[in-house]
C-alpha cells in the first residue's frame, strides 16, 4: 500500500515565468533560465488551475521568477478564485504598483508574500543584484493598506544571517503578520553559489538564539517561521511532504513536477501542453518514480524513519551524488553524508568572511 495514489494534490505551485527584475544569487530557479522563454498562454494557465482544482487542490501559489511580469496575472488569479482555490502571490514586490495591487485585489487575491533580502538597502540590493529595497518596503506597506495580511520571506545565508535581529525588527516596523526565515536550500543558483552562502556553525547558533527569543517575545503579534538549514540537520526533511504526495509544480513552459528543483532529474518530462494534469498526477513516470517508499534503497528501506522523512529530497540526492535514488546525503545515516560534511567543514574552516563574491542569476 505504500505507493497508493494520494487523493489529489493539496497545492499547485504555478511558476508563471522565470523572468525577473532581480538577480538574487540564492535564487532557486534553474541555471538554464533562457530555456524557459516559451511560456504558457493565459488560457493554458487557466486550464491548469482549473484542472488542479478538480484534482482536489485547495491552494494556488503564484510564483516565478517574478509573477508580476505576467500582465495576465489578475486573470489567472480570478480563475483560481472562481475554482475556490486560495490564491497566494509570492513576489519580490517589484512591479506591485498601486494599479496592479488594486487589480489583484479586485480579482480576489487572498494573500501576498513579499521577499526581502536584508534589513537595509546596501546589503539587500547587493544580494538582489539590483537596487530594489526601497520599492519593496513601499510595496509591503501597500499590501497592508489594502487589507491583506503581510507575510515576509527572507532567505538566510552566510551574508545576512548575522543581521537576523535587525531583519526581525524591520519586519516589526512594517507591521508584518508573519515572517518566514528560510535557510537557503541549495537548488539552482543557490547550488552554484553554495560556498558563498553556506553559513558557519557559529553563525547559525547565534541566529537560532535570537530567533527563539524573538518567537517568545512576539507570540500572538508576529508569527516567526524558521526553516532549519538541512546541511546542519541530523535527518533530512520530508521534502514537499513526499514525492507526488501533496504538491504539484508547473514551470513556465508547462512541465509539471513534484518539486520545484526537479528540472534536471533524469525522468521523462510531463508537460501540461501534451497531457492532462490528472494523468500527470496519477500515472506519469515523473510523479510515480519516487512516490511512497517502494523505490527506497538501504539505509532508508530498512529504517524506522522512512515514513517520517520519506528519504529526504530526491533533487538534493541527485545534485550531490548524481543519483536521484540515493538516500538524501543530508541524513547522517547516508553513505554519502561525507559530501555534506565536506561542504560544512569548508564553511567552518576556510575563513570568517561573509562577503564572498556571488554569481548573480540572469534576469531572463
Amino acid at each position, binding site marked *: 500500500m505504500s505507493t497508493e495514489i494520494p487523493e489529489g494534490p493539496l497545492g499547485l505551485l504555478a511558476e508563471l515565468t522565470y523572468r525577473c527584475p532581480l538577480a538574487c544569487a540564492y535564487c532557486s530557479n534553474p541555471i538554464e533560465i533562457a530555456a524557459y522563454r516559451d511560456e504558457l498562454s493565459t488560457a493554458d494557465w487557466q486550464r491548469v488551475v482549473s484542472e488542479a482544482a478538480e484534482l*482536489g487542490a485547495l*491552494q494556488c501559489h503564484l510564483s516565478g521568477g517574478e509573477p508580476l511580469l505576467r500582465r495576465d496575472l489578475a486573470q489567472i488569479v480570478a480563475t483560481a478564485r472562481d475554482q475556490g482555490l486560495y490564491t497566494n502571490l509570492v513576489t519580490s514586490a517589484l512591479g506591485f504598483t498601486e494599479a496592479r495591487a488594486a487589480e489583484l485585489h479586485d480579482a480576489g487575491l487572498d494573500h501576498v508574500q513579499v521577499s526581502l533580502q536584508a534589513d537595509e538597502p546596501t546589503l539587500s540590493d547587493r544580494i538582489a543584484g539590483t537596487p530594489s529595497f526601497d520599492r519593496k518596503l513601499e510595496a509591503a506597506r501597500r499590501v497592508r493598506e489594502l487589507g491583506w495580511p503581510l507575510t515576509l520571506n527572507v532567505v538566510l545565508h552566510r551574508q545576512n544571517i548575522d543581521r537576523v535581529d535587525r531583519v526581525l525588527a524591520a519586519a516589526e516596523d512594517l507591521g508584518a503578520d*508573519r515572517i518566514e526565515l528560510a535557510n537557503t536550500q541549495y537548488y539552482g543558483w543557490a547550488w552554484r553559489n553554495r560556498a558563498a552562502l553556506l553559513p558557519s556553525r557559529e553563525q547559525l547558533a547565534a541566529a537560532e538564539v535570537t530567533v527563539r527569543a524573538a518567537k517568545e517575545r512576539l*507570540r*500572538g503579534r508576529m508569527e516567526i517561521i524558521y526553516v532549519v538549514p538541512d546541511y546542519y540537520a541530523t535527518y533530512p526533511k520530508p521534502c514537499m511532504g513526499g514525492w507526488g504526495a501533496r504538491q504539484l509544480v508547473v514551470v513556465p513552459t508547462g512541465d509539471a513536477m513534484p518539486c520545484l528543483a526537479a528540472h534536471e532529474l533524469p525522468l521523462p518530462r510531463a508537460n501540461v501542453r501534451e497531457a492532462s494534469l490528472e494523468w500527470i498526477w496519477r500515472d506519469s513516470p515523473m510523479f510515480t518514480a519516487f512516490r511512497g517508499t517502494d523505490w527506497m534503497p538501504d539505509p532508508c528501506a530498512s529504517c524506522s524513519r522512512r515514513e517520517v522523512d520519506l528519504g529526504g529530497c530526491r533533487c538534493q540526492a541527485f545534485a550531490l551524488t548524481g543519483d536521484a535514488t540515493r538516500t538524501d546525503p543530508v541524513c547522517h545515516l547516508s553513505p554519502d553524508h561525507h559530501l555534506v560534511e565536506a561542504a560544512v567543514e569548508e564553511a567552518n574552516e576556510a575563513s570568517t568572511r561573509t562577503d564572498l563574491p556571488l554569481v548573480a542569476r540572469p534576469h531572463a
Partner: protein
Amino acid sequence: MSVTVSADAVPRLGRGVRMRYDKARDRYVLLLPETVVVLNATGAAILELCDGARTVDGIVAALRERYGEVPPEQVHAYLAKLVERRHVEMTHEH
C-alpha cells in the same frame, strides 16, 4: 500568553483566512497561505457562525438551537485556541 474569550466579543475569521468545504475529501477546512487546517464537525459548526456579527454568546445560543445542550466553556476554549493561532480575530463591541 493564553487568550481568554469574553462572552460579548465578536469573532470572525482572521485576515487572509478562508473556510470552505473540501469536496474531494469530504471535510471542512480553513485555508491559510501555507497551511490547510482540517476541521471536525464541531469546529466547522462554530466557525460557520463566526460571521463578524454574532457575539460568542450568540454563537453558543445558535449552536444550542441546532444541537441541544452545548457547554459554553467548550466553545470558548475552541475559539481561544484559534485566536492564539490567529485563525480567528475578536472585535469587542461598545
